């Protein structure tokens, strides 16, 4: 279900279709994300959730349609988008050879802020342990601790943020997402799990899936 664009939308996507390795994943996707809004992208494995997120951060260039950030189109507005972007992907961006504290400081956090963030993700006492010695869930929490830093950027794009988290972690993260929305931040994330957030919009990529065979034949004539 497309979301109607509003005038103060930060991110607008119009009639977007994405390809990966030459195969069209979805087409005709339109949505808008304003300040204080959250959007959950759903879809089966391989539906193109990650590709969509990577397209929106400018890391995958194979798309048709229009993406606007602050009213100006890609790729001109990409640098502005990246200035206010916090992206956490499948690869969490946590260096195994550094401690959680050093990782957060590398992301530009002050020492005190970083310690407070680590405490909030339940890693108190682990701040000086090397990340290679942490469990998968714990090292995922190190990445998510970036969301608890006071100077977190306004646009969050999160790929499967709830993966590998325990029940307490999921509820803590939902709380932090609500806090971010209340500070008029915006969140775009993928998840297979239901997330309890007030005013959460949902998009199911299955509704925009492309009939692959028809597209392939058409594509062969069009580009061959």
């Amino acid at each position: 279900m497309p979301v109607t664009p509003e005038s103060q939308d930060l991110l607008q996507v119009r009639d977007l279709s994405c390809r990966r390795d030459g195969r069209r994943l979805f087409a005709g996707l339109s949505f808008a994300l304003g300040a204080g809004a959250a959007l959950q992208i759903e879809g089966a494995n391989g539906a193109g959730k990650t590709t969509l997120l990577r397209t929106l951060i400018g890391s995958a260039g194979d798309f048709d349609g229009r993406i606007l950030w602050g009213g100006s189109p890609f790729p001109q507005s990409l640098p502005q988008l990246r200035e206010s972007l916090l992206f956490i992907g499948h690869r969490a961006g946590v260096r195994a050879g550094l401690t959680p504290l050093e990782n957060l400081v590398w992301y530009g956090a002050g020492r005190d802020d970083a310690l407070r963030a680590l405490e909030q993700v339940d890693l108190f006492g682990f701040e000086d342990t090397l990340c290679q010695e942490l469990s998968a869930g714990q090292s995922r929490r190190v990445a998510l601790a970036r969301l608890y830093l006071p100077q977190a950027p306004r646009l969050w794009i999160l790929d499967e943020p709830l993966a590998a988290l325990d029940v307490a972690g999921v509820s803590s993260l939902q709380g932090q997402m609500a806090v971010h929305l209340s500070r008029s931040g915006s969140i775009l994330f993928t998840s297979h799990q239901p997330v309890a957030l007030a005013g959460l919009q949902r998009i199911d990529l299955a509704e925009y899936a492309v009939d692959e065979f028809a597209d392939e034949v058409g594509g062969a004539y069009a580009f061959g």
Partner: protein
Amino acid sequence: MPSVESLSGIAPAASRAAPGFGALLKVELLLVLRKRADIANPLLFFVTVLALLPLGVGPEPELLARVAPGIIWVMALLATLLSQESLFRSDFEDGTLEQVTLSPQPLYFAVLAKTAVHWLVTGLPLALLSPLLGLMLNLPAAGYLCLFASLLLGSASLSLIGAVGAALTVALRRPGLLLALIVMPLYVPVLIFGTGAVQAAIDGYAYSAQLAILAALLAAAAALAPLAAAGAIRISVDN
């Protein structure tokens, strides 16, 4: 003590503290120093092969003296190449490289910092070890200073050039041989002027011209190689 930033609102983009070049260097150095085997292995390789050489070509002092400059240089080149394969690998696999490409600050300095640290832990020790290896291979005394100076300058260029190859192949699972094929031809000018300088010094000629050219190569590599590597990283991460 870091200043306490406002806990309520979301700070504007400009206040995202970007790590400066010094901070980048510090983190890279910290990471490398925690993996000491990665530092020691290329150096051990360098020393071991040079120790084996007399067993292969024979122990005649005159013969060893003749081949010493070339062999030391070629082995320095291989040692650099071997250590370079992993330059960006762990950062690529844990997603740090992706985060770096998304950050608003230029990738150039991140690459330069990584390369500088690579040189500090491979090129610099190689240059420091070279007089010892010269002694093992009966290098004439006139060549020592020049060997050290040329390796000091040349190995920095090798690190920078190799970074381009490492960035191009970072997304491949086993880049070993491909990396060598990409990078080796680019090493040729450094090798020619490096060995040329040492040979000139041994023969009693002035070698400042060769060293000047090595310095010029280094300046060009420092300016251009991080740019090329940054471009290659963007391609590797985007796939």
